[in-house]
């Protein structure tokens, strides 16, 4: 069975380590915050200038001066720091964020990612995504393995305009967890009940399959 969005978030959460500074993109990545394992503390970076994003505010706590990069009202947690956009991207571009999780339209076996622009459709902009993929050393892409029409999104070469070149090391799809290195996708885990053949079928890029591909687990 393909993973649900929640299961994807749970699986990504297992990659969190105690003391990580993490930037979570919009969508599934945001859900990861709900599944932080017990005994692990991570600090969420929001690129509008907040390190240590807390929970959403109660009605009484709502403050227009306190938002996250998704423009949602938010709170700051204990030990948070707030700063300018230049400082925020100094952190991001200087490689100080330990893990970035973001969505994508396509990734390819060279670690390229396309996530911001579909020619012919209205383009709203890349926001901080290009900075995040260029700056982080440790990036997990979350995405569906293929389109609704069964077209693979894990490609030999991205078709869409890139967000970043050669920067993605890990991909979690609804079918599999993969690492990208040496010009190939390396299959590490498969979603429970999904066969290697199924994954192979829906992976257009070069796929390296080890002898044993364990099923994913979601506990920390």
């Amino acid at each position: 069975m393909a993973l649900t969005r929640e299961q994807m978030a749970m699986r990504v959460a297992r990659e969190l380590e105690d003391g990580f500074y993490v930037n979570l993109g919009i969508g599934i990545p945001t859900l990861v915050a709900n599944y932080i394992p017990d005994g692990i503390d991570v600090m969420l970076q929001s690129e509008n200038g907040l390190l240590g994003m807390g929970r959403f505010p109660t009605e009484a706590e709502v403050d227009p001066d306190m938002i996250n990069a998704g423009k949602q009202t938010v709170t700051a947690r204990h030990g948070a720091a707030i700063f300018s956009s230049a400082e925020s991207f100094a952190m991001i571009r200087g490689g100080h964020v330990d893990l970035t999780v973001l969505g994508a339209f396509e990734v390819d076996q060279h670690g390229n990612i396309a996530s911001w622009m579909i020619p012919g459709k209205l383009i709203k902009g890349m926001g901080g995504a290009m900075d995040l993929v260029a700056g982080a050393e440790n990036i997990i892409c979350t995405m569906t393995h293929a389109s609704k029409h069964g077209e693979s999104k894990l490609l030999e070469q991205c078709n869409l305009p890139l967000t970043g070149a050669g920067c993605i090391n890990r991909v979690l799809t609804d079918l599999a967890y993969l690492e990208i290195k040496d010009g190939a996708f390396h299959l590490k885990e498969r979603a429970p009940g999904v066969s290697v053949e199924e994954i192979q079928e829906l992976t257009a890029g070069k796929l390296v399959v080890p002898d044993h591909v364990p099923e994913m687990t979601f506990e920390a």
Partner: protein
Amino acid sequence: MAGFDKRVYSYEEAMDGIESGMTVIAGGFGLCGIPENLISEIKRRGVKDLTVWSNNCGVDGFGLGLLLEDKQISRIHASYVGENALFEQQMLNDEIEVVLTPQGTLAEKMRAGGAGIPAFYTATGYGTPIGEGKEVREFNGRHYILEESVVGDFAIVKGWKADRYGNVVYRDTAQNFNPLAATAGKITVVEVEEIVEPGELKPDQIHTPGIYVDRIIQGSFEKRIEKRTVREG
């Protein structure tokens, strides 16, 4: 102390000198920390053909979105736009030119402009459409593109508190692009919620030193919230 008293007492005075065709750098992220009254004054004046540098372009009827109503903006450098119908329409009609700029590059261009750095290298955008036509150079085995900085005719900024010397502090995430914009204007205008007595702001806790600021005005603010998100409390 007349020389350093930067207070002005009307928005008309605050935006004195702005003309059609000028470049305006604006602070704010979404609708958070935007110089809402300075924007309204630009609207009131009806100046046209503005080039705007701002992370976003407001929403229909608020923030920079107001300047779309009379087509006052010809070109905008932003990282994320199109949160409003008017913007999309003008973009599709080629009535507004959009120069999409990665958010960190946008921030750094302002910071560099204010700091006398004409250009810098960044990995952001290398190998993407943003890097096309830009110089690529390798440092320590990685590829970077050259990005030039920006200085505006005006910078419009929203602060929290300021003193008459133009020293400004920002509140929480309303800081965002504001201190960067403040450094990059030939004329920098800051509107704040409160002008405090000199000495109230601790010297080593000032976000924008007064040297960058030409005019300070105290205003009142709607501070509209774009995405009110709450939990049960």
